């Protein structure tokens, strides 16, 4: 009996060994690294950027080329967010898997009901993406769709562990949908609130929470705040404005300057997973962002 059990275990381990093959996943943002870990706990996951880096301005560094060379799967936001560096990494890493044709490229925006698409874009409009707003780490309601698509992609790349991915995906979606109710209830006081933003980073979060960004510290998307633009914002009627919202990776001078003149409180949100201590994974990112939005602080 003892002998049989150990034989069974050995045979079991032999069968299990194909699934011990760990997928190597390269992500463009820490949010997708978190999502990948939640869907493929055994995978070797790397994020090319941190929450403190502007994702439009990443250098195609030697270290990133080396990492991408080894990737089985590349997960990025897409909609041209990474257009200034991802194509160079793909070209230089010579990884045929990490391309659309190779099947190992997953753009999250392709699985999101993208907001603010433009039929006509030219550069006088600033850094506007024709494909719509790419900051989809805050597309709370779409995360279920993203999870389904990512699960299918993982199963396609690593068929031996199909059942594991199915289970992890279902578990993620179950938890996420539960949390969505918790977050919605908690964020009730935020419904209808108007804010001044800095870039369109929180477009999806505000839309989901029923908030509205009525002004932007940037004169045009991607164009840094200018004195004349801030001066015009300081003259706005702010009786209906709740707060000035910016991200931990952005400089605070523009927001502070305006807050002192308009006497508006400020909220500093994580841009991505890791942007604050509490935003340690995708759940924490949304939860912490709502907590921070609920408690604006005044600037003196």
């Amino acid at each position: 009996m003892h002998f049989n059990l150990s034989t069974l275990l050995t045979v079991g381990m032999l069968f299990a060994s194909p699934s011990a093959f760990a997928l190597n996943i390269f992500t463009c943002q820490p949010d997708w690294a978190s999502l990948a870990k939640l869907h493929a706990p055994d995978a070797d996951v790397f994020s090319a950027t941190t929450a403190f880096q502007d994702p439009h301005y990443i250098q195609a560094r030697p270290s990133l080329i080396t990492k991408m060379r080894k990737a089985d799967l590349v997960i990025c936001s897409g909609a041209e967010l990474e257009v200034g560096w991802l194509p160079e990494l793909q070209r230089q890493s010579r990884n045929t898997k990490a391309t659309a044709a190779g099947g190992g490229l997953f753009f999250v925006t392709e699985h999101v009901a993208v907001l603010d698409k433009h039929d006509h874009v030219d550069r006088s409009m600033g850094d506007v993406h024709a494909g719509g707003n790419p900051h989809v780490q805050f597309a709370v309601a779409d995360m279920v769709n993203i999870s389904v698509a990512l699960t299918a992609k993982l199963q396609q790349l690593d068929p031996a562990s199909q059942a594991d991915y199915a289970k992890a995906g279902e578990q993620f979606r179950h938890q996420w949908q539960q949390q969505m109710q918790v977050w919605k209830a908690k964020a009730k006081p935020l419904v209808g609130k108007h804010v001044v933003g800095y870039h369109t980073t929180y477009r999806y979060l505000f839309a989901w929470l029923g908030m509205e960004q009525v002004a932007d510290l940037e004169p045009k998307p991607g164009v840094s705040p200018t004195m004349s633009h801030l001066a015009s914002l300081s003259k706005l009627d702010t009786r209906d404005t709740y707060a000035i919202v910016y991200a931990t990776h952005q400089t605070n001078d523009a927001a502070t300057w305006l807050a002192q003149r308009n006497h508006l409180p400020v909220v500093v949100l994580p841009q991505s997973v890791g942007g604050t201590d509490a935003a340690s994974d995708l759940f924490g990112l949304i939860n912490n962002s709502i907590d921070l939005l609920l408690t604006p602080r005044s600037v003196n």
Partner: protein
Amino acid sequence: MKKIWLMSSVALGVAGNVAADTLSQIKGPDISVVLDGFYQDGERAFSHRGEGFGLGHTEVGLSASVDDKFRGVLTSVFESHHGSTEIELEEAFIETLALPYGTKVKAGRFLSNFGYLNSKHTHEDAFTERPGVYRALLGGHYYDDGIQASILLPTDFYLALSFEALSGKKMDAGFDDPATVGVYSGKLSLGADVGESHSWMLGLSVLRNGNGHMQFGGDHDHGADDDDDHDHDHGGHSHGPAYTGRMLYGADFTWKWAPQGNYKYQHIRFTSEYLYLDDVMDAPFSALEGAKDSVSGYYGEVVYQFTPSWSVSTRFSRFDHIEGHDVHGHGDHAHGHFENEKLQELDFALAWHSSHFGVIRGQVSQQDYHGEKNNIVSLQYIMTFGAHAAHAF
């Protein structure tokens, strides 16, 4: 029942739209345009940017995937010189997209991988012109017809090797019967990050030019650089290097810094390169007074972008060389003599970046050449529109 059917069809319709909108259609090639105009007071040695108003490196580029295995790039360059406009084909190459083991092959006309600056387009530079040693030994940037094979090794740090075989016609010292494949070159590149804020890259290059040394016994024996353009000149200015030799060696180092790796608000780049040209001339010439078998030079530059829209840069460069005076072959012996010369430059530039796609730059260069100090002032714009290819490190 009907209501449920309607709702699900609406849901399907929405999902269908999401899919249809993001499915990319076959689009035309990426077209990019670089406009480079300048006003300059004075002229730099070994340069083809003249005094006054002019157009620098005005580029029109086309690129696209040919299929799943090849990509094609075509770049033509327009430059104005003393009232006439020249058109030059700078790049016309294909490269593989699907070779295994991190390998790639490029064929056609392309920028050689030698050194750090050479493989970059000049619109990426932080200065109006490349350093003196680059202008003298590589003609500013060396591109040629040939083939390149390269490999990115599966190491934990960045390690890449490339090999090139090129026609070498631009670097021909004036051979009557030049080798068909004149130039072979190789490069080793290393790189890594140090923490979140620092990145570096190191390159070692070697280039063998079979037609590079000053040959004795031909019909056209003449001295190295009798009048700054012993190579293929087009009416008084040169595109090729002024100095060639049998072997060219290069070492380059680049370091970049941005606080927490966030390049948007501020960052610094430091680059330095050393170039050493060896085996410059045949024996009867090298026995002449003042003759040397090698020339060399270096530069170091720092670029500091201190806000999203302003950057300052400074560069020091030096090129130690020899100049021939009335050097020529005569039967079985040579005449003339050589003198030591140095070109030393100190540059300062201030640039305003209207966005990621536009730069207006003012530059002052102090040039120390032929025992004379000159100040050269340049005002330049570089604006790009259309597709804008991502830049390499």
